[in-house]
């Protein structure tokens, strides 16, 4: 398809957004960030909890429902719509994500305005949650295709944005709630509704940059100076493609699923109860008046580590390989938990360094996963495979808090670090299991590779669902595929 053909294609189609020669790939990360920084707001939901509980007279459990449903819907919608996201392209996915995410805020505003809390659960949790899932995976495969030389860095930038979304939303929404009287005693529910309304409209504008600017590379595009034949290769890096339907039949997918699930569970173990953990470890050394601020500082420090770990470690994985970086996340993570277990509250700085590194590995586990999938299964349907992998997140989101809260509650009588001894030992065991799972990952059996005739087999090559070969699966002129599926071609590449 030529660029001219693309102008006749529908606005949302993949053909319409094939980048013209001269397009800069450095416009793609901000387009991805426009979506991820917005949907990352989900982690700032706690700001709304107290105003909703007091303003609408609901319980703490009820006020958590929109967030919990949103995270469940994130995993489900990423898994269910992943294939469609890959087929329809990133503009379609980003626009659908924006519509769902913004609609979630508008429905929630209506729900609070009319005092119908079920509308908040439905809007923010169900409808908005679909926006989270589709938005999360929407730029991933596109970034990998634009940065075949640095896939870990590219996905690290976008997924760092998801971590950074709450940093923006938390102080912003808190200041609006205060300004509109929603934090008073009693809080004004109309102020909460107005906050939802303004956030929805602002996110609609902010996210529009994403779906307007996003482009996919042309079939024959490659980065300037990058030679696919000379790219870093390893035993795990495939040059073929595996479909999403076949990927979930491979042990590699499920081993990586275990790796992600347990790495996330171990991170949530400390993230979920950041303030109480800090209080139990160091409460005695702080005056009561300043302690709440110190605990908030600890939570902020962990957020910072979580966010920058996504970029730093994922970028590092481009240099040392995906399997090695996960070895570090899991092995060093287990050691760090052990250090906390042994030193308890004897050294505050050591405790903070350990906690920060654990959280940086937690975030990095998310950010490096798409590049690991690319290595194992190729770029064909990597977005859909990523969507299915995110079900591990949904499970970990339940498992992590459940373990920590249940054990902490069972040790109510104990004081100080002893309350968390059992939890941390469980986290160490989970990380060791994840480490073993990572060690068991081997190259995918060639029988799962897609072939020209639409069957799986040992030949390299990729087909679309309709039978036509895609750009990811395009061959070189001689018929031999290049690494990463890119064609060697005549088009001038741009940086």
């Amino acid at each position: 398809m030529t660029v001219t053909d693309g102008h006749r294609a529908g606005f949302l189609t993949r053909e319409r957004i094939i980048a013209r020669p001269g397009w800069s790939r450095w416009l793609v990360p901000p387009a991805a960030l426009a979506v991820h920084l917005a949907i990352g707001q989900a982690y700032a939901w706690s700001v709304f909890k107290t105003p909703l509980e007091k303003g609408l007279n609901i319980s703490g459990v009820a006020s958590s429902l929109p967030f919990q449903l949103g995270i469940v819907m994130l995993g489900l919608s990423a898994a269910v719509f992943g294939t469609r996201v890959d087929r329809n392209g990133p503009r379609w996915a980003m626009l659908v994500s924006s519509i769902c995410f913004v609609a979630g805020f508008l429905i929630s505003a209506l729900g609070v305005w009319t005092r119908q809390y079920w509308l908040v659960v439905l809007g923010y949790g169900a409808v908005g949650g679909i926006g989270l899932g589709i938005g999360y995976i929407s730029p991933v495969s596109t970034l990998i295709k634009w940065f075949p030389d640095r896939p870990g860095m590219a996905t690290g930038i976008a997924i760092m944005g998801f971590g950074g979304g709450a940093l923006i939303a938390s102080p912003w929404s808190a200041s609006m709630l205060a300004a509109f009287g929603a934090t008073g005693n009693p809080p004004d529910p109309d102020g909460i509704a107005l906050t939802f309304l303004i956030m929805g409209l602002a996110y609609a504008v902010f996210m529009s940059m994403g779906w307007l600017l996003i482009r996919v590379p042309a079939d024959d595009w490659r980065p300037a100076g990058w030679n696919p034949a000379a790219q870093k290769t390893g035993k795990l890096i495939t040059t073929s493609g595996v479909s999403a339907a076949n990927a979930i039949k491979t042990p590699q997918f499920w081993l990586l699923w275990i790796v992600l699930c347990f790495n996330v569970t171990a991170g949530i173990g400390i993230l979920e109860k950041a303030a109480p953990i800090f209080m139990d470890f160091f409460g005695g050394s702080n005056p009561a008046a300043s302690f709440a601020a110190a605990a908030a500082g600890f939570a902020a420090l962990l957020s910072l580590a979580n966010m920058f770990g996504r970029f730093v470690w994922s970028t590092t994985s481009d240099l040392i390989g995906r399997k090695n970086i996960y070895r570090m996340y899991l092995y060093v993570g287990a050691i760090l938990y052990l250090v906390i277990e042994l030193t308890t509250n004897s050294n505050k700085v050591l405790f903070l360094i350990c906690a920060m590194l654990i959280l940086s590995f937690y975030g990095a586990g998310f950010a490096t996963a798409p590049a690991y999938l690319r290595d194992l299964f190729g770029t064909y349907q990597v977005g859909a495979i990523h969507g299915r992998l995110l079900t591990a997140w949904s499970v970990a989101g339940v498992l992590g808090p459940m373990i920590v809260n249940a054990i902490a509650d069972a040790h109510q009588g104990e004081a100080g670090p002893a309350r968390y001894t059992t939890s941390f030992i469980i986290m160490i065991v989970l990380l060791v299991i994840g480490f073993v799972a990572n060690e068991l990952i081997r190259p995918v059996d060639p029988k799962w590779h897609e072939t020209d005739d639409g069957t799986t087999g040992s030949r390299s090559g990729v087909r679309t669902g309709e039978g036509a070969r895609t750009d990811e699966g395009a061959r070189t002129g001689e018929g031999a595929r290049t690494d990463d599926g890119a064609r060697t071609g005549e088009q001038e590449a741009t940086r």
Partner: protein
Amino acid sequence: MSAREGQERRVPPVLIVLAWLWVGVPFAYGLWQLLLKLPALFGG
């Protein structure tokens, strides 16, 4: 000259700068708000 060659033109650098500012400014705001909380951790 083909249609593709005819359309080849570089993206203006200002567009790239604006795109990064679009996401960078809110991100910097969030980061700044976060950093303000950190001194309390060390008794500041």
